[in-house]
């Protein structure tokens, strides 16, 4: 039998039900690995070992009773651990959003996505590191230190769901929840060699997700393969009364066929995503992966998404604008620390000025400016219209192809500190992931090779709204005939 920490989610669920392993030993194995490795990786901000073990023991008791009466209901994912990005509320666990302004915040409720996984029997190991308020592409913007890429500790894991991606890549947890507003699940998945889904906007409840850009934020899943990710996705997806932006559409019952046949599948390859400036090996590897899909029967079709180049300025107008509104609530009054003063306005100014990091302040200011009187139409108004054009590019393209394949990022994992204090150069890391968030479409990233330094390269498949099942099937089929997703960094 494989090492406990190497069991996939699917294998772990099966082994637990069969009684081959216990939840207690599985959880202990993960906690031990975290204890030994996380000091080098710094993926976790909060760990709850005692609570996790208590839940594991409870899970074992339930499993034992169930084995005596197997006709009774058993929570589907009972006894398997998960890590949660520190922007999602888990009752009783700190939720810092990687910021000092929420240093002391302990939510009294669970995010819906978390609630659904707890109901399915999962055990939360702890909260993972994130760029502050999910603003960033490297996890360097966390107030609590940077997380290290397990493939090369001197490099970033990507962001903002860097902690979750590392937890999965380094086998500190079988699966993890992340969030993707501009690429924050797909890009760290690519940099860390794991599989990550950004669902369709409106597919997963944002209740309990601390908001950054409300028209863009999506809760996503990271795991070692498409099967595991699809499984967790099915539990978190679905309409929620508490989130008026969830759509009442049925969740497809995702049965991933073990086929090697993708005949009939038309894959659009957008020319705008293969411009000069991307790392040469990234282009080579992505094209190889697309060829592989063609070997499996798919047909690659060149397509054009002409407004791609505008995704960056559009996103960096819309997201900070929404953020400036969403982060107005952090004022030292109801939660988090307060810098005292005799005047209330100073409480707000000092608390926010000192407790927010630079990137957060920059984006709040950008958003405040572009929404302010006299500038709204030129910036925000125009950005919203160009957003429509970006979305229409995808709608039009999906009339002639089923999915779109593209690189996730223009580079592999860069060195910690490489972008210095240069916000625009960091923003350019997101060029390929932003369009999907602006259009609201789903995107699935999975590993398809390595660069000459051995750093993982991910490809993303994007699909029409609410068609995640096609994306999972493509990745699953690819993963049946390749081994990239099975590689583990040497630690």
């Amino acid at each position: 039998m494989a090492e406990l920490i190497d069991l996939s989610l699917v294998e772990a669920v099966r082994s637990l039900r069969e009684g081959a392993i216990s939840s207690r030993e599985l959880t202990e194995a993960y906690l031990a690995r975290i204890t030994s490795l996380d000091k080098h990786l710094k993926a976790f901000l909060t760990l709850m070992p005692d609570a996790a073990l208590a839940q594991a023991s409870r899970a074992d008791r339930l499993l034992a009773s169930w084995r005596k009466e197997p006709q009774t209901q058993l929570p589907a994912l009972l006894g398997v651990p998960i890590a949660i990005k520190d922007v999602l509320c888990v009752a009783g666990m700190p939720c810092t959003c990687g910021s000092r302004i929420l240093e002391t915040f302990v939510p009294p409720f669970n995010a819906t996505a978390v609630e659904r996984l707890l109901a399915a029997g999962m055990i939360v190991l702890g909260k993972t590191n994130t760029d502050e308020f999910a603003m960033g592409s490297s996890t360097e913007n966390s107030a609590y230190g940077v997380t290290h890429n397990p493939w090369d500790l001197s490099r970033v894991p990507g962001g903002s769901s860097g902690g979750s991606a590392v937890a999965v890549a380094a086998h500190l947890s079988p699966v993890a929840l992340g969030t993707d507003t501009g690429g924050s699940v797909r890009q760290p998945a690519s940099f860390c060699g794991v599989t990550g889904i950004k669902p369709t906007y409106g597919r997963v409840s944002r209740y309990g997700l601390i908001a950054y850009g409300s028209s863009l934020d999506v809760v996503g899943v990271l795991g070692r393969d498409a099967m595991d990710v699809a499984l967790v996705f099915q539990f978190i997806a679905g309409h929620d009364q508490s989130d008026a932006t969830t759509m009442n559409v049925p969740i497809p019952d995702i049965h991933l066929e073990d086929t090697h046949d993708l005949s009939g599948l038309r894959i659009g390859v957008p020319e705008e995503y293969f411009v000069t400036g991307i790392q040469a090996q990234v282009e080579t590897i992505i094209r190889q992966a697309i060829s592989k899909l063609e070997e499996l029967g798919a047909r690659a079709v060149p397509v054009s998404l002409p407004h791609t180049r505008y995704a960056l300025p559009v996103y960096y107008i819309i997201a900070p604008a929404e953020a400036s509104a969403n982060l107005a609530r952090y004022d030292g009054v109801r939660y988090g620390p307060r810098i005292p003063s005799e005047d209330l306005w100073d409480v707000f100014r000092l608390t926010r000025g000192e407790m927010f990091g630079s990137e957060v302040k920059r984006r709040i200011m950008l958003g405040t400016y572009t929404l302010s009187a006299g500038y709204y139409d030129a910036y925000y108004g125009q950005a919203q219209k160009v957003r429509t054009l970006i979305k229409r590019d995808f709608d039009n393209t999906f009339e002639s192809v089923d999915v779109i394949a593209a690189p996730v990022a223009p580079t592999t994992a860069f060195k910690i500190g490489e972008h210095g204090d240069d916000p625009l150069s960091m923003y350019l890391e997101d060029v390929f992931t932003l369009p999907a968030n602006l259009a609201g479409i789903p995107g699935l990233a999975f590993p398809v090779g390595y660069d000459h330094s051995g750093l993982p390269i991910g490809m993303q498949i994007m699909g029409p709204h609410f068609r995640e099942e096609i994306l999972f099937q493509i990745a699953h089929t690819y993963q049946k005939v390749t081994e990239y997703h099975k590689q583990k960094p040497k630690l």
Partner: protein
Amino acid sequence: MLRNGECAQRLLGFDSARGIFSGDIILLMRLTKEEVEHIANLARLKLTGEEKGRYREQLSAILDYFTQLQGVDTTDIPPTSSVLPVRSVLRPDDPSPGLSLEELLENAPQTESGQFRVPPVLD
């Protein structure tokens, strides 16, 4: 005014080594120091002198980068405020229990008599 001054159209070719415009082009910065202070005040952010200078440069460069959107023809294009076709989602007007007062006050730095305690507004 120099506000609509030139800026190079840069996409993947952005000069990350220099980051911002150098030398005397700094005078062409889109934002004035007063504007930065005004924005910071609107956003209730107290900034140090160093921060004001740094953010002025960085935000000016970012705003310059945005000007490329002006060239996009958006005649008759509706804005997208939500990618979903959902509007006016309502629920029945039936009250249901929420969080308790205790839970709501749990995280506050200062409370008094079941309320959030704050200093007065002095100006």
